[in-house]
């Protein structure tokens, strides 16, 4: 029935939006607070996924359990990368940052290729992987639903952090005015460090979930980097709240195309970018 198909597409889209939002929010944090164009963001995502896989294969860790290990691991990795390279290009032109982080992404991607090979890594034997339930003709998988819930919780948690907590206020202050923030006594460098490590952590958690949803390959990072960038740009640079809506819009369109249009799977990527393109152009020409 057409209506069920439509509903299915909508639901799948909404569930996927959670993950997109999670990854994009991390990137928005890096761009908004630190001002760094981080092309390697998706690689944190990829590393999270592969760490999950490796923990499963070596120790039999359930992915949910892996969250406990992967999150701090990614925080540390993010911190190390910030300290060793990112902080030196903060004042450099955008182009340099893009290139540096791009180089980092090449290194990480190929490191993963070297270690794990290019084939998709399947995490089998997870008991709840294929559990799902029906709701009015629409099937909802437990894993996508779970990842949506976790992602939403994390994104909302980040919003709360930014709005209420001292750290969040500090980050917003730094995002608004770096000099002013340091004048009132904030340690800007430390805040940058925490923000960057946090963005890596968020992406890493997203990676844990994607590892269960679909078998990751080392190149999955870059695809998500592009999408995250597109979503951040769509929401407007610095607009962290808009990311939820942007992710929703984009994920639902992608999903609807994949479900309703014949041969839609291959088109969904293009539809994603077509939307971004049109929105950017329309917005640019509308402003007087």
């Amino acid at each position: 029935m057409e209506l069920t198909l439509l509903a299915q597409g909508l639901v799948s889209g909404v569930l996927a939006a959670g993950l997109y939002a999670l990854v994009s929010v991390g990137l928005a944090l890096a761009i908004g607070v630190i001002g760094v164009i981080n092309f390697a963001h998706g690689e944190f995502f990829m590393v999270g996924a592969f760490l999950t896989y490796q923990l499963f294969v070596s120790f039999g860790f359930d992915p949910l359990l892996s969250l406990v290990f992967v999150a701090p691991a990614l925080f540390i990795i993010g911190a190390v990368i910030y300290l060793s390279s990112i902080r030196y290009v903060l004042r450099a032109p955008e182009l340099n940052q893009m290139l540096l982080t791009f180089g980092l992404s090449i290194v990480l991607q190929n490191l993963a290729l070297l270690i794990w090979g290019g084939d998709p890594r399947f995490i089998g034997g997870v008991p709840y992987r294929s559990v799902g339930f029906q709701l009015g003709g629409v099937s909802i998988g437990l894993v996508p639903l779970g990842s949506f819930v976790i992602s939403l919780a994390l994104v909302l948690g980040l919003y709360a952090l930014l709005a209420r907590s001292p750290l969040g206020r500090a980050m917003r202050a730094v995002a608004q005015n770096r000099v002013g923030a340091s004048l009132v006594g904030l340690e800007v460098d430390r805040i940058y460090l925490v923000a960057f490590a946090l963005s890596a952590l968020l992406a890493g958690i997203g990676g844990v979930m994607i590892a269960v949803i679909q078998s990751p390959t080392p190149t999955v990072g870059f695809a998500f980097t592009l999408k995250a960038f597109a979503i951040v740009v769509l929401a407007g640079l610095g607009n962290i709240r808009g990311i939820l809506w942007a992710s929703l819009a984009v994920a639902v369109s992608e999903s609807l195309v994949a479900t309703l249009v014949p041969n839609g799977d291959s088109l969904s990527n293009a539809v994603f970018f077509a939307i971004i393109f049109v929105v950017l152009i329309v917005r640019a020409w509308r402003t007087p």
Partner: protein
Amino acid sequence: MRRALPDLAWTLLLAAALALAPTALKALFQQASVSYLSLASNAMSLAVLALSWDLLARTGQLSLAHAAFYGAGGYTAAILARLTGAPLALALPIGGAVAALLALGLGSVTLRLRGIYFAIATLAFAEVLKAVVQQLPTGIAGGAAGLNVPPLFRPHFVPGTMQRWEIAYLSNAGYFYVYGALLVLAILVSIVAQRSRLRAAFTAVRTNEAVAAVMGVRPARAKLLAFVLSSSLVGMLGALEAERLGSVIPDGTFAISTTVLALVTPIFGGLYTTLGPILGAGVLSAIEETLKRTFAEGYLIGYGLVLVASILFMPRGLVGLAGRLRRRRPPSPPGAGPESGVVADASSGHGGEAG
């Protein structure tokens, strides 16, 4: 344009060297010259890619759609070969023209976009183009599997007058000449942009579009001109590469790695110069070859590390590095002329403007 004379002289010298190179290599290295010619063609291809991207970057348009124009050229060559009996050599100019038209379109709608918004829009364009090409009827564009492209050079083996490897030599030498011609063309375009009033126009638009407009430069015209010039070069390169590789396929021909190489190379070599992209292409090609031979598996890691290191320690590229070393020398006596050539230009470019 008087300052262009030294650059033009060097270019003439380069053209002459390129014209003589294949015969010289063959005389010196016999069979090994076949692979040398191939390597040189790769380096020249990268140089053209880099020069074309740099040209566009001079107006402040940091495009991530380069692969789209490259692919447009490649597919034009393939489709031309498939649908018409046109001689393959025509594919180059027509491929360039198709890419130029696309650039005109894309450039026009993105005139108001800057910085990362422009970059993402161009990236989105490239992805959409790739998908559109993939969705075209299989009879025209081959769908996801792509098309075969007949090679430009198909030398015949005549037993008795030549050895087996000489066929490969003839084919590689042929491509070498075409790549060389394209490279010289790209260099000439870059020199003209560097030594004529275009340089002031491009730099003004890049630095501050509003002020440039007030000063009498027409930003839209400058940006579109740069876009069209840049994409024609890349389109021609795409057509040539399609004929050399023998096939086009959406994932490969429109691969983002082309765009990446296109932007990495001039930045590594030195933006807003003519020498920079060429130098960058030469060094990066050499590094890639060396890396490929030492670490067969993970050589791309080395590439990424080189990139990271060069951004951290060499932000103005190789040309900037040379400039810095030059300035360490004791000051020249009064009366000496100003520095000329691309190095001086590099010291005024890059740095604060792209920020």
